[in-house]
């Protein structure tokens, strides 16, 4: 087990390196730079700014400088927020996105798994059609529609929750639901499919023939196999949830990472883009590793491979 984890971690180093390198050169290939304005700057000022950020050095030198900084954990200064480093900005906004993502994940799992399992137990009945129709709607309605609708109903008309901000517990309800809804829908569909597949297996009939209660058949014999598609999905999905959502953060005015990510791309804030890309890539690599480990823990047949 330790060996597998170590191997996977070592394997992810070249992957990360490739991602950083490709991103580094790609963003510099894109037209425009961090200090381009509609109104042109005084050439002398422009030159001094570029010199300050080492942007007039040869590209390879910029790259080796940046990589050198990275190795010591320094993501460099943000080009757009002159007074802050990328490390500081991420340190400020990532915990917010992490918290929001965690709540959204809980919402998604709670609603998604419950709906999917209930639907699988009564296939082709109203207990199946109702949650599955809702799930289809959940997948189809984008969160920039769902967010404002929830705001309108529960924030403004009913006045149950605040409409923006990220301080008290009440602030966190609507954004978490908005962000989690689509994932809940996917999880519901995946867990229904997984459960139906497992329940059609012969070993479920064996379990019933043993005289086990239906609850025990479901929880003890079927659930493990039934949730495997959900776990495979959760690896990359959780990375997406935790690294912030531009839409949800904008709709609810939350100071999270998603907003920072999208704005940095528009601003050509090279270091900020690289910082968020590295963070996102690392999250994906780690969470995929965790979901693979969970899968081998659940399914003993994968352990020999």
């Amino acid at each position: 087990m330790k060996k597998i984890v170590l191997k996977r971690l070592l394997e992810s180093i070249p992957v990360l390196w490739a991602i950083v390198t490709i991103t580094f050169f790609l963003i510099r290939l894109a037209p425009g730079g961090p200090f381009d304005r509609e109104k042109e700057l005084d050439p002398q000022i422009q030159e001094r700014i570029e010199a300050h950020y080492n942007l007039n050095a040869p590209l390879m030198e910029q790259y080796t400088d940046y990589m050198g900084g990275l190795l010591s954990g320094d993501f460099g200064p943000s080009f757009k927020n002159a007074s802050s480093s990328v490390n500081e900005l991420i340190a400020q906004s990532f915990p917010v996105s992490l918290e929001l993502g965690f709540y959204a994940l809980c919402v998604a799992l709670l609603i998604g798994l419950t709906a999917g399992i209930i639907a699988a137990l009564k296939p082709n009945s109203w207990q199946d059609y109702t949650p599955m129709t809702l799930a289809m709607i959940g997948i189809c309605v984008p969160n920039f529609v769902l967010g404002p609708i929830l705001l309108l109903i529960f924030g403004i008309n009913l006045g149950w929750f605040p409409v923006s901000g990220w301080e008290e517990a009440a602030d966190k309800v609507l954004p978490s639901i908005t962000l989690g809804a689509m994932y809940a829908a996917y999880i519901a569909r995946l867990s229904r499919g997984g459960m139906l597949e497992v329940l059609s297996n012969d070993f479920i009939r064996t379990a019933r023939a043993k005289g086990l209660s239906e609850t025990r058949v479901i929880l003890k014999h079927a659930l493990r196999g039934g949730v495997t598609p959900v776990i495979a999905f959760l690896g990359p999905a959780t990375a997406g949830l935790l690294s912030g959502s531009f839409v949800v953060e904008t709709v609810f005015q939350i100071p999270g990472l998603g907003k920072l990510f999208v704005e940095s791309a528009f601003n050509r804030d090279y270091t900020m883009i690289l910082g968020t890309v590295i963070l996102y890539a690392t999250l994906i690599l780690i969470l995929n590793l965790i979901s693979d480990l969970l899968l081998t823990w659940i399914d003993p047949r994968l352990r020999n491979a």
Partner: protein
Amino acid sequence: MMPLLTVENLATHFHTRAGIVRAVDGVSYTLEKGQTLGIVGESGSGKSVSCYSLLGLIPMPPGRIESGSAHFDGGDLLNISKDELRKIPGQRISMIFQDPMTALNPYMTIGAQLMEPLLLHKGLSKEEAAKRSIEMLEAVGIQDAEQRMNAHPHQFSGGMRQRVVIAMALITEPDILIADEPTTALDVTVQAQILELIKSLQEKNGMAVILITHDLGVIAGTCDSVAVMYAGRLVEQASASSLFHSPRHPYTHALMKSLPSMNTDGKELYSIPGMPPDLTKPIEGCAFAARCEHAIEACRGDIHLHSIMPDHATACIRAQKGEL
């Protein structure tokens, strides 16, 4: 003596889009303590469904038990509450399924699956259940049973898995064992060992066995009495010796003729002409009449299973009249 199990007029239908499939259509039989009853028939003749019905293993919907009763130990298996029924399978009546490769849960250890009925039905402690499970694994011929308890099914070969399935079925010392093609997936040497094993446990505990198979050879070697099923109905029922010496239904006769071992002179193997009937359509008269070389007009009329000898009953009206 009261029979251990009396099944009367059991009918299990499946309501599908293609129509009502009459998988089992009025089957009756009795089973005595310590006796082995063989149920033979080709695929789709309803032999498995008739047994699944007893244990509440028919998926409903689409399945439905339309009529019948199954008296076991003072109760009717087809007419008791789910909670009552749950006390019977796995404990008093247990089942061995056809395919050992898929009958075990791949996510659980062998030990956990073996111990489950003991912990739930017999109220044994974990230690006792583990001890009993190891003993049972040893009894079915699995070596290093203690270490094997922590193994998962995929680490076992087919024959080993079937032994585990059998150990699991026998661990609660049931009154009745229903074995659904217990040896089809196994090679011949293992087949013989498994049948021997069931037989020896039967002699020890007085357990009754229902053996479902399409293999007349297996029936001949192990069963006291035999029921032959065709298209969801019983066509012939007799003691094993009587059935094999003088089959009294053209279908049974045809089945025996199509056994490879009955044909030693190098001629092409006999096969019954035609196809089994479509079970979605109600069958008038004898279900086999369309394929039967002896069929006459009267075969389309009312057909019932009748005794023609003390231990021999047939549904063929011509055999009942002594014409065949």
